[in-house]
């Protein structure tokens, strides 16, 4: 029996070092599914999905940057 064999969908992926890259497929799939429900004309699905996915990714990066600046820059000055 091989104890180290990876089994897809059973064992977790070893992506601990690059977990943040999974934000991209997550944003794309969320945007695709939401827009599949909402768009009146499915011919616009690809474009609307791309726009919403970019909005999610930019928003998350901006929130991360804002949290980083608040914790690393603003808070140390406030508690000094």
């Amino acid at each position, binding site marked *: 029996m091989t104890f180290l064999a990876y089994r897809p969908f059973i064992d977790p992926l070893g992506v601990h070092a690059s977990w943040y890259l999974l934000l991209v497929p997550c944003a794309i*799939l969320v945007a695709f599914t939401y827009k599949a429900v909402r768009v009146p*004309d499915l011919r616009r699905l690809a474009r609307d999905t791309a726009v919403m996915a970019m909005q999610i990714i930019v928003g998350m990066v901006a929130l991360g940057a804002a949290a980083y600046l608040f914790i690393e820059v603003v808070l140390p000055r406030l508690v000094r």
Partner: protein
Amino acid sequence: MNPSTPDVSFEPLALFAACVLPGLGHAARGERARGLAIGVGVLGLFAGGVLIGGIDVVDRREDGVWFLGQALVGPVAIATDYVHQSRFKVYDDRLRRYRSAYPGELRDPNSAPEPGKAVPSGQAGTRTGLQKPNVKSVGKVNELGTLFTALAGMLNLIAIIDAGFPTRRREIASSPTPTLKPAGAGGGA
């Protein structure tokens, strides 16, 4: 807008179909392309989450609150949890309940009275028929897998509501004033 058209209609068959399989409700309403897109999106998110975090991310016993969201995917999520509970968890004699296996443990599917008894690999010896349980996911991988699957369920809830109670999508018409029409009336692409 035609004032005689009801604001919200109710389609019980589409509602039931949407609960059975993501996207099936829209397909039952005649919007096959939209149903296919919803199915691909919801099941893609769910499968992606299970691929990232392993089957461990769908666990109604250990992550009950998250499972409330995941269960909204429908029978697919419930079947995944059933397989996890019945085929991969091990029975702990000391705790008298099933739990995730510890590293190095094996699973005895033929144990009695509770199948799936935990067997430390050091005590496996020459016993045959022992199974390797799933590897428990931890950290960010577990969080992301759980997030993917729960998002799939919540998005499917939107799709279920849209299938059963067709809302009026804003029609992008060539006319300067946008009009509203029932979603089911236009059909799929």
